[in-house]
């Protein structure tokens, strides 16, 4: 039973003609990595999967229903998105920011209750930002903001995680912690789809991989069949050296 699936999906990237129709089936417990060079359409794909952007053709199915037919609130109770960049509108504290993850579950007249606060605080602790709870988000460092954004989706507690470069701005320890969180979510039965630029994180933490080319072509499948040096070299147009560390391949760009 797929939690998220695409049917002949072609995403709408301006100036691109067609491409490979995506027929991907994502099941609970899977961790998908989306890899590709800049401008390949990774963010567009995630936004299309979240229903924020209309596809050029084809459709997205969330729990076997067409995403376009569902109400936004219904979608938001099942699917959460970590954005790559965030707009700062009005000043808000860290706790307030995490708390809006509960928005899809509350009725218009309902105020956030103790349970909602508890969920937000747990998420902040899990992301190691609980000590910043009363700080304004605009005063935080890039990495701290990234962790607050992830804590917001953790408060939202979706079945499907769409994460656009979730390790952006993070130091090594927190990169690893975020990937462990994604793996943990998958182990609890959630599905995770994330765009990554770090091949080594993909190799270590993802079980499925989608490669996206700037031309619109794409291929996907289990990690080991996708993370082949020759395919990655043509994807990034970059020569790579591969070594094995700790049971996983490590890709290093080489000169020339």
């Amino acid at each position, binding site marked *: 039973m797929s939690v998220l699936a695409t049917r002949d999906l072609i995403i709408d990237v301006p100036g691109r003609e067609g491409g490979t129709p995506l027929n991907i089936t994502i099941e609970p417990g899977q961790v998908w990595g989306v890899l590709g060079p800049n401008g390949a359409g990774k963010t567009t794909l995630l*936004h299309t999967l*979240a*229903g*924020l952007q209309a596809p050029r053709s084809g459709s997205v199915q969330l729990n076997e229903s067409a995403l376009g037919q569902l*109400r*936004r*609130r*219904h*979608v*938001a*109770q099942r699917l*959460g*998105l970590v*954005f790559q960049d*965030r*707009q700062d*509108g*009005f*000043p*808000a*504290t860290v706790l*307030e*920011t995490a708390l*809006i*993850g509960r*928005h*899809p579950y*509350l009725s*218009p*007249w309902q*105020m*956030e*209750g103790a349970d909602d606060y508890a969920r937000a605080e747990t998420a902040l602790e899990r992301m190691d930002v609980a000590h910043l709870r009363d700080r*304004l988000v605009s005063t935080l460092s890039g990495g701290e903001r990234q962790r607050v954004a992830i804590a917001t989706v953790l408060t*939202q507690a979706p079945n499907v995680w769409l994460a656009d470069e979730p390790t952006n701005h993070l130091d090594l320890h927190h990169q690893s912690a975020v990937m462990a969180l994604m793996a943990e979510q998958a182990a609890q039965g959630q599905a995770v789809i994330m765009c990554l630029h770090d091949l080594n994180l993909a190799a270590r933490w993802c079980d499925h991989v989608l490669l996206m080319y700037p031309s619109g072509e794409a291929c996907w499948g289990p990690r080991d069949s996708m993370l082949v040096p020759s395919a990655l070299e043509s994807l990034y147009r970059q020569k790579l050296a591969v070594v094995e560390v700790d049971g996983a391949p490590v890709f290093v760009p080489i000169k020339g």
Partner: protein
Amino acid sequence: MLARLGLPLSLLLLAALAALLLALGVGSAQISPAQIWDLLQGEGDALARTMVMELRLPRALSAFAVGGLLAVAGALMQVLLRNPLADPYVLGLSGGASIGALAAMLGGLGGLAISSSAFGGALFSTFLVFGLAHGSGGWTPSRLLLTGVVVAAGWGAVITLMLALSPAERLPGMLYWLMGDLSYARTPWPPLLLLLATCVVLIPLGRSLNVLARGPQQAAALGVAVRPLEWCIYVAASLLTAAAVTTAGSIGFVGLVVPHMLRLLLGNDQRLILPACALAGGTLLVLADTLARTMIAPEQLPVGVITALLGVPTFLFLLYRSR
């Protein structure tokens, strides 16, 4: 949570009542709060009762309604455009209303004709700005803002032209209207009811507005139907502003300064800010209008001058003190 909303709102409500009491008591004849209580009960001196019930009370309530409408409209515009500099007039609304009102005055019409002409001008300007900003694609906040600012500048030029061409005896009335004047406000109930209805409708939308303030994409990802909500805010803010301008002419600064001051003091939860704006905006304008009619009595000052003179230093002080 309820306590967090309750305390500031009760304080603001008390301030509003105190301001109204002051407005009823102060003027050419001073009336003490105890006397006002008697008068409201239908007792006391007949002359004083006529003055309070038929002159001061409608005017004070109109001032309260207009101030509340402007402040709520400003808060909504700031969320809609995600721009702290937005105010109720930013989309050229007051310019449109002014042209309607001035045209009616030039034509020698009075009272109701001026009001309906102003209301028509405000709505015309709203649709003009929205249509132009919409263009062939969709509108974005920055496009709406730019279109509004440019249209407002255009109205400004037309207003100056109309003033330059007006006969001298009509000029004072026109200038007073442009700077805001409550002396013609006789029926406070329509704007007051509109203010109340708006608050009741907006409070359940408050959390969605909080999410929308973080940007449309984030809001959509959290389950907000962004376009319908934006439409609703746009129409509501325009209607509120048009009603305010129609009642009292264009009064500046209330819509910009009040939401800001409250955000600096109370944080940014729209569920608190919107009712707080209604109360604080109303209070400010009641006080400003009381000053305007007493400072150089029996002459009256345009109330817009007072709101600016009070609002600007307070606002700058709060901004300076904020983190």
